[in-house]
């Protein structure tokens, strides 16, 4: 029985495995979060990491930035942040007597938008064009961004004070919403012990995480994604799940066709991350909640009853037959 991947895909799978290993040196006990972050990177999408303060959201993205040798910039969102602070602005240069473009932090390969929901909607929306189109417009002039431009935003749950929830249009631009849970007891104990032994709390400054991927590698990895196959029956399964979100009694607005496209992309990336060049229904199920959850609006009754999007999606899964 030949279990070998094609040579190019095999190299891609290996480098992804190495990247994952490096990141897991800094981020303990968050395997699912790491997988979802890497899937986002592989797909060329953007991810929104949500969790309470102190569960390693920012650390995860910083570890990724350290493992991938590319330009990384960070914006700390605050209530007084302006759109021009993100994309940049034209500044009048007295020496040349002309306007000169002063680029903002959006001109980068990886952008870490820390605590994105601490800024008002107008400022959050400044990222919309950049995330959707891959370019920004300043004073009527379009400026292209990096070909691998990726936004990793973090936010605290909206129940916390001093936050502005992201508008639906803004949320829809994110490939997935990664929920960062508390680590399990064993992982938490390991972190505490490491700090107790004198290791820096974020485990990044001491060179624990080595750069293992270049920008060229990242582009090669992304180019390999279309080579991952998806059977027609698996695509049908995926589409049936997405369509079922529109008919569920607890859902006011279901996922759009963009949700189907993103879910297939994420499933293909997960397959590649697992060392396969084909998608299985398990890939679809694993990516379903992070990709579709934030694309659905629940009815008021469901919200009052305390239903979550994840629960609704799982109940949908119980009604869709797996192709076999």
């Amino acid at each position, binding site marked *: 029985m*030949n279990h070998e991947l094609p040579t190019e895909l095999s190299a891609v799978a290996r480098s992804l495995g190495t990247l994952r290993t490096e990141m897991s040196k800094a981020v303990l006990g968050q395997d699912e979060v790491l997988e979802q972050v890497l899937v986002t990177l592989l797909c060329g999408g953007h991810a929104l990491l949500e969790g309470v303060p102190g569960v390693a959201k920012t650390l995860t993205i910083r570890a990724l930035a350290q493992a991938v040798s590319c330009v990384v910039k960070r914006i700390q969102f605050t209530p007084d942040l302006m759109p021009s602070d993100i994309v940049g602005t034209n500044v009048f240069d007295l020496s040349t007597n002309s306007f000169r473009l002063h680029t903002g932090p959006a001109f980068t390969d990886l952008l870490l938008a820390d605590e994105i929901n601490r800024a008002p909607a107008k400022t959050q929306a400044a990222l919309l064009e950049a995330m959707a189109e891959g370019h920004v417009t300043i004073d009527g002039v379009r400026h292209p961004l990096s070909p691998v431009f990726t936004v990793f935003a973090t936010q605290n749950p909206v129940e916390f004070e001093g936050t502005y929830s992201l508008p639906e249009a803004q949320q829809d631009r994110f490939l997935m919403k990664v929920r960062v849970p508390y680590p399990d007891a064993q992982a938490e104990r390991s972190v505490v012990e490491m700090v107790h032994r004198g290791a820096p709390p974020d485990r990044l400054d001491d060179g624990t995480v080595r750069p293992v991927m270049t920008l060229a590698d990242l582009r090669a990895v992304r180019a390999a994604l279309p080579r991952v196959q998806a059977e027609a029956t698996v695509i049908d399964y995926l589409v049936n799940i997405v369509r079922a979100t529109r008919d569920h009694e607890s859902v006011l607005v279901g996922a759009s066709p963009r949700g189907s496209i993103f879910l297939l992309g994420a499933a293909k990336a997960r397959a590649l991350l697992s060392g396969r060049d084909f998608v299985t229904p398990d890939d679809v199920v694993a990516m379903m909640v992070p990709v579709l959850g934030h694309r659905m609006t629940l009815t008021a009754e469901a919200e009052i009853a305390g239903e979550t999007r994840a629960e609704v999606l799982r109940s949908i899964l119980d009604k869709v037959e797996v192709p076999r």
Partner: protein
Amino acid sequence: MTLARTTLHLTLSVAAMSSCATLANAAEGTGRAAAPVPAATTDDPHQHLNQILQRPMFRAWRSRQEGPDFRVESPLSEDFDGSWIRKPFTWIGDLFEWLFRSRRNAPRLPNLPSGDGLSTALKAVAWAVLGVALLFLTILLYRVLRRPTATSPAARLLSRQQVRDAMESGDALALGTGQWLDEADRLASEQDFRAVYRALYLALLSGLHTVGKIEHTRNRTNWAYVERYRGPANERQTFGELTTLFDRVWYGRKPASGDDLDVLRHKVALLTQKAAGGGAA
């Protein structure tokens, strides 16, 4: 189909009993002269109702009520007693009452001596019909009870079309493990190796479900079965290996050859046996 037939038989039996009850009522009628109907001349509805209830058709019914002071509270109650749901039971009750009533309590009609004879004859006919109906019901009940309850695929022969439909649907429980294995052999003879892998995997799911190691539903993914496998770690590992193999051939369309089929079939059979407790784990 069987349920419908049984229902039909039961309906016929009740109908037969109802016929007996009708005969009984007819017999009652033969021994009774028609009494003059009291005219309803009052405007009081209760009095009016009681006058109506004095009519011969209601006398037998009144005699069954509790004492002579019985009053109908509402005309609706009569409608309810005579509702179509209760009618067959009322008829059967009347029939038994009539059949078992002692001659001392039977209505005596000295002015119609032939009435008793006719009544006796009708009683005999009613007994006969009742006996036949009871015998029929007993036979029917016996046949239903002695029918084998196991209607699993393994317990019946399936047509070629049924097997084809099962294969088309991909429902592991549509066939028994043995039938899936037979189908795998047939597909191997046709050199359709991809389908052979599928039949073997479905045989595995069917077998593991039968012995209670997994709970098969059409909406569960392959690895969800592996994660929820109720058995020792080494069995789960084998199950995982076989699942990986199936995924590669079925979803990945990797080339499937006949070289490994014997090994694969042996693994499937061995895991199913182990799971059933028939082998060393």
